[in-house]
């Protein structure tokens, strides 16, 4: 036999050996990519300002930042009434980070209070992300599908969650489905996403409707149902529904307690007077600071604006999420937060009747018709537009606080439940909106800050509080207002080759945590999961 040749017997042995060896690695590779994480996206479609909440505009003590009249969060004057001219931007030191003063608040939860900052015990904030183009739908949809039209993160996660009864659930709010992240669902396999009907009053019952109906069928049918549905019908859906109903009540109470100005640190502690008793010509530019969308708010005390405020559907959305995740029915949920409605206005005027814009954005002139009737009352249409173009300084401050305090309180309640069911360590909660906002010089509102998106993440796998991403102290351009103070416009990061973070980096990071393929292959992750702990790949954070 030619020494170069191999005998048939040895060749066959080789084949068998390699078959055994070849079989193993595939299996191990498959296991290593098996997802172990739940994903809950809390979506503020419209892009409300985040600088009062989870966007620390001066994250470190040494951070320089440019002040803007509109980015303020505390009245620093003495006396029984708050003075608008004494508004300032204040921070609170939390784990070495200078977080917005909001975090000094206490959250009311079902008979007890906790520090809002406890949410930051396991929090990663990514700021200064450049979204490349303006546009609500374009950018909100990117939050799940960074490459338009391609696979979405929830879609790919759903492919791996087919064992769950609901591979993906989209709790639809005011914004509907098509124009927001939830409308981009696209999976490789045949995984489905259930979209609850827009603003459905009972989303959980909608989801489990067939099981409830089948569970109500007694007698000869119960045997058939059990045998046909097997494991899917093992759950006690009636018990879950009862639990859901109780949770809705709980979350409603939580929202009611936290949405009011009473209890808000600093801004809720004193009367904040609005403008009143003006006649023709007695307008100043300061009046723009009291605009809210279609009304000039003239409440005697601005805090009363929130006395009848509601966030429709939020309690139901959180209750549904809590039951779905803790009962193992679903681990892939989108919550679309509705706006605050039913604001109370006192002696207020329709905006169009009292002033008009000249020369486009941010340049207002005022007129007043003395026979205009003022309005006092509360109705659903009195609302806070999350796309707060025309929400002036004072309403912006109170309404954002109310929104984020309510949502934070709900998140804190959800967190407790996830910890109890040992799921917090393997759940990633993602607070997202299209972008932050670029405040107007006259404080009459703010524009889209498409070059300054912020995402904050909450998970037991994140140890401590970390902030990453650079922003400009003063905008160099490519935004509505140049040199407008620090609001969060993304600045280059050296670790990314001197360019700002883009959403693809965030998407790749989320994909890594969730154990799915990234939908944004050209963008490297900026945080990742290693042995169950989330770590960051970039550490830069400063104002430049």
């Amino acid at each position, binding site marked *: 036999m030619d*020494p170069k040749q191999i005998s048939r017997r040895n060749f066959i042995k*080789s084949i068998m050996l*390699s078959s055994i060896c*070849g079989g193993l690695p595939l299996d191990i590779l498959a296991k290593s990519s098996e997802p172990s994480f739940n994903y809950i996206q809390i979506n503020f479609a419209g892009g409300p300002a985040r600088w009062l909440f989870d966007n620390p505009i001066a994250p470190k003590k040494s951070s320089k930042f440019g002040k803007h009249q509109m980015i303020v969060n505390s009245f620093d004057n003495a006396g029984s009434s708050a003075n608008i001219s004494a508004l300032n931007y204040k921070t609170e030191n939390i784990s070495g980070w200078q977080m917005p003063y909001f975090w000094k608040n206490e959250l009311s939860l079902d008979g007890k209070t906790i520090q809002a900052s406890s949410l930051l015990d396991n929090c990663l904030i990514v700021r200064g992300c450049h979204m490349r183009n303006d546009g609500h739908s374009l950018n909100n949809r990117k939050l799940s599908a960074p490459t338009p039209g391609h696979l979405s993160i929830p879609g790919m996660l759903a492919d791996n969650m087919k064992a769950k009864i609901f591979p993906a659930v989209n709790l639809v709010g005011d914004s509907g489905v098509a124009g927001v992240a939830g409308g981009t669902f696209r999976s490789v396999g045949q995984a489905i996403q259930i979209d609850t009907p827009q603003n459905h009053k009972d989303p959980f019952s909608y989801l489990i409707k*067939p099981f409830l109906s*089948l569970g109500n069928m007694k007698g000869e*049918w119960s045997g058939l149902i059990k045998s046909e549905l097997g494991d899917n*019908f093992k759950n006690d859906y009636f018990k879950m529904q009862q639990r859901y109903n109780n949770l809705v009540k709980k979350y409603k109470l939580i929202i009611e307690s936290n949405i009011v100005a009473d209890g808000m640190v600093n801004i809720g502690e004193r009367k904040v007077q609005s403008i009143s008793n003006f006649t023709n010509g007695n307008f100043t530019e300061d009046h723009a600071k009291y605009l809210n969308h279609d009304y000039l708010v003239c409440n005697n005390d601005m805090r009363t604006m929130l006395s009848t405020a509601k966030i429709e559907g939020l309690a139901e959305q959180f209750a549904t999420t809590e039951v779905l995740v803790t009962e193992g029915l679903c681990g892939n949920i989108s919550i679309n937060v509705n706006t605050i409605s039913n604001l109370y206005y006192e002696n207020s005027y329709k905006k169009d009747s009292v002033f008009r814009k000249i020369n486009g954005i941010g340049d207002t002139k005022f007129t007043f018709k003395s026979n205009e009737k003022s309005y006092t009352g509360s109705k659903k249409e009195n609302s806070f537009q999350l796309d707060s173009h025309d929400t002036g300084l004072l309403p912006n401050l109170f309404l954002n606080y109310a929104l984020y305090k309510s949502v934070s309180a709900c998140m804190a309640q959800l967190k407790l439940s996830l910890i109890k069911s040992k799921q917090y360590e393997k759940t990633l909660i993602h607070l997202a909106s299209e972008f932050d906002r670029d405040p107007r010089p006259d404080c009459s509102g703010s524009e889209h800050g498409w070059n300054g998106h912020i995402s904050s993440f909450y998970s037991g796998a994140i140890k401590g509080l970390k902030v990453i991403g650079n922003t400009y102290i003063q905008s160099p351009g490519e935004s509505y207002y140049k040199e407008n103070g620090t609001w969060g416009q993304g600045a280059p990061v050296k670790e990314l080759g001197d360019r700002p973070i883009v959403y693809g980096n965030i998407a790749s990071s989320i994909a890594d945590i969730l154990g799915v393929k990234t939908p944004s292959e050209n963008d490297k992750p900026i945080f990742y999961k290693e042995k169950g702990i989330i770590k960051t790949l970039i550490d830069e954070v400063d104002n430049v």
Partner: protein
Amino acid sequence: MYKLRIILLNLLLTTFSVTYGSSYITKKDIYLNRFQLYEVLKDKFGTQSEDILINNILKNSSIFFGPCDIYGQVYKTTKDGSSVRNIQAECFSGLSENKINVNAGANSLRKSWLLKTCIELVENDKTYGFFSNKYKIKNKKDIVRAFYNNTKTGFSAATKKILTAKVCSSSGWQKL
């Protein structure tokens, strides 16, 4: 040297079995979508079954698939607002329904909804009566034959009604 070649060959073949194990063909089972299911079940259970089928199947586009026809929607005024004249064109959850897959896949919710539908069809005297008359149901074999071409499918149940619901909700006849 000879043994080294054996070892190298093993490693080479190992690599190949890892890297070339995938196929270029993937196949997904396709099931009747909501429009097809609606027509088939309406044919079997009569026009009286329309309400049951609309509420359970036609309106569940994310579970049973089948895109809507945006411009097929001609609206009429109703007491409460408006509704679509041709319900089969309706985009129940919005215009994005026009991009749902034409082909339906299997999922656990499909089974639940279909079982609910079939039980309701069977419980309804009119629809079950129509079914029984159409297929001249005398015994259990007739029930199976109403959905499958042969009767050797291994279905059994205590009563004809239960068997009908069982066969109706089984996946075999729904596969295209």
